[in-house]
């Protein structure tokens, strides 16, 4: 039994490593398709006027004129040592920038995920499986929530709650400043998760175990909460890893709107400045987070549904 478990863990790690290697390779070669002189990106400033010799020195220093495979080798060697190179514009190791900026982003996405689940569960418990207007209302709300684009929802929330009502600060790096961005990210995902859990909830309600529980005299609310929800939450949990990925992608927009510190903000600026080591570093770290999140959500699924304990290793 333990051997199976260990083998499963090893397989998971190996395939995760393979995935990360592929991601790194893709971004590396994409970077080298960029036209233009990276030395210029490093030395260019508002009034910069780098002489040719300085440009050449930079090219030598960074090895821009080495054969591509040599550069690839150096890149992979660095990667193994968690060295993602130095940002062209910020003149700091990419690893340092990313590790500093990932925290606020994870805070944001974590809060958003919590909001999304709270929304999904509330909507499901209140309205799923009910006939008539309540069910339809719930379904309608979910569809609308899921269709709201972050960039618009964010701006609307900002204007209503920060500018007009002034209940919350426009920008703030404390917990108050987290409210609006997290809502912006969490509401659409909540709508989406609610759609999924509602579907499952409806299916689960028709399962024999519900009927048998009810016939045993269990209270309806109890059954809804304890058993049906547990069943219904499964696909949602399985999707949470993917959801976290989508949240990080959404964080790019939300951080720009709310001028929040974080990896999305860094990414946008790096893309604007063609700071490719930084772009690559951020991408790589997001892929890493995504892979870890998926492993975790698989594990969470197993916790909620013991039946999966024998199959999960095989499917992912």
């Amino acid at each position, binding site marked *: 039994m333990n051997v199976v478990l260990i083998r499963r863990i090893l397989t998971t790690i190996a395939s995760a490593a*393979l*995935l*990360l290697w*592929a*991601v790194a390779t*893709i*971004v590396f070669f*994409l970077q080298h*398709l*960029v036209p233009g002189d990276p030395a210029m990106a490093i030395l260019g400033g508002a009034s910069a006027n780098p002489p040719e010799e300085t440009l050449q020195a930079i090219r030598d220093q960074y090895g821009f004129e080495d054969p591509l495979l040599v550069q690839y080798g150096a890149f992979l060697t660095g990667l193994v040592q968690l060295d993602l190179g130095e940002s062209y514009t910020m003149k700091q190791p990419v690893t340092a920038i990313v590790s500093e900026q990932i925290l606020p982003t994870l805070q944001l996405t974590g809060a958003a995920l919590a909001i999304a689940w709270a929304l999904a569960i509330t909507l499901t418990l209140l309205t799923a499986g009910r*006939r008539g207007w309540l069910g339809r209302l719930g*379904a309608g709300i979910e*569809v*609308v929530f*899921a*269709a*709201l*684009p*972050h*960039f*618009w929802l964010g*701006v*609307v929330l900002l*204007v209503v709650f920060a*500018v007009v009502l002034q209940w919350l600060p426009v920008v703030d790096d404390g917990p108050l400043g987290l409210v609006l961005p997290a809502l912006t990210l969490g509401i*659409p*995902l909540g709508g*989406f998760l609610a759609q*999924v859990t*509602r*579907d499952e909830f*409806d*299916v689960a309600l028709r399962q024999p175990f519900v009927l048998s529980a009810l016939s045993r005299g269990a209270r309806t609310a109890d059954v809804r909460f304890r058993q049906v929800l547990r069943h219904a939450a499964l*696909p949602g949990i*399985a*999707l949470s890893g*993917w*959801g976290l*990925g*989508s949240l*990080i*992608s*959404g964080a*790019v*927009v939300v951080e*720009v*709107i709310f001028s929040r510190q974080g990896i999305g903000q860094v*990414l*946008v600026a*790096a*893309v*604007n400045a*063609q700071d*490719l080591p930084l*772009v690559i570093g951020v*991408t790589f770290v*997001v*892929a890493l987070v*995504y*892979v870890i999140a998926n492993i975790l959500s698989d594990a969470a699924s197993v916790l909620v549904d013991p039946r999966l304990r024998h199959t999960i290793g095989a499917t992912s």
Partner: protein
Amino acid sequence: MTTLAPPLPEVEKPAAPPLRTARSSRSPLRHLGVALPGAVVGAVVLAALAPGLLAPQDPLEISLSESFAPPSAEHLFGTDQSGRDVFSRVIHGARQSLLIGLGATAIGLLGAMVLGLAGGLGGRLADGAVTRVIEILYAFPGILLALILIAVYGNSALTQMVAVGLATMPGYARMVRSQVLVVRRSAYVEAARTLGHPPARILLRTLLPNAFRPLTVLITLGVGQAVVWAAALGFLGMGVQPPTAEWGAMLNAGRHYIQQAWWMDFFPGVTIVLFTLSLTVLGRRLQQSTDAGALR
């Protein structure tokens, strides 16, 4: 950008019964539920095909003395900082947004078909490879891949289209693959095979149509999503550049003036939301009817 993404199915979908309380559907409300979104989508398509019919003004024509005019009879959605008519710009923006949305969906689907068919039909090795490729694509969540492509190739409508297309590809590919696998093992194909039909015919006549039928729903949903993603890139200043009318770019410009000219952001935003919402509603309707059809 929205989480309306398609990767859910894997979980156990294809034949899940349509929960939406069967067919109590003859009420007038139900009709309205189709007619309204239908009208919205129709209007957007019309705006994209023939913006001149709907737009009262040239979307690029400035009028320096009329900047920041609030909505009025003359300017239904107000004017922007250069005195351009926001309503006309929203109308003209439909073409850009729809073009990018449809183009991206086409690119995503095309790639997905190649991947999905190779995975579903190509045997274990090919399937393993395809699964890996899909996984790798998934590891660039959302607009991340789009941002990398833009960093490399610069801003343009084409980059935007390809980038969004690639971003939607893994979702579709996963769907196609599992669908092909299901259909391949289905009774239809078994029957066709026992009847001795040649493989090419089975592929074209039986397998493909059956595998792609559920996709029509996804496409309806996917176009909406692609439009939203494209607008998100525009919003980040990484798509079509102003003054070209494009919904995302308009939202981006309006964001800075939100305190003095809310209409610059409000109307393009509402348009995007209504459009994607309508596509979602229509898509779900379609899903119910195809599911129902498939069950028969």
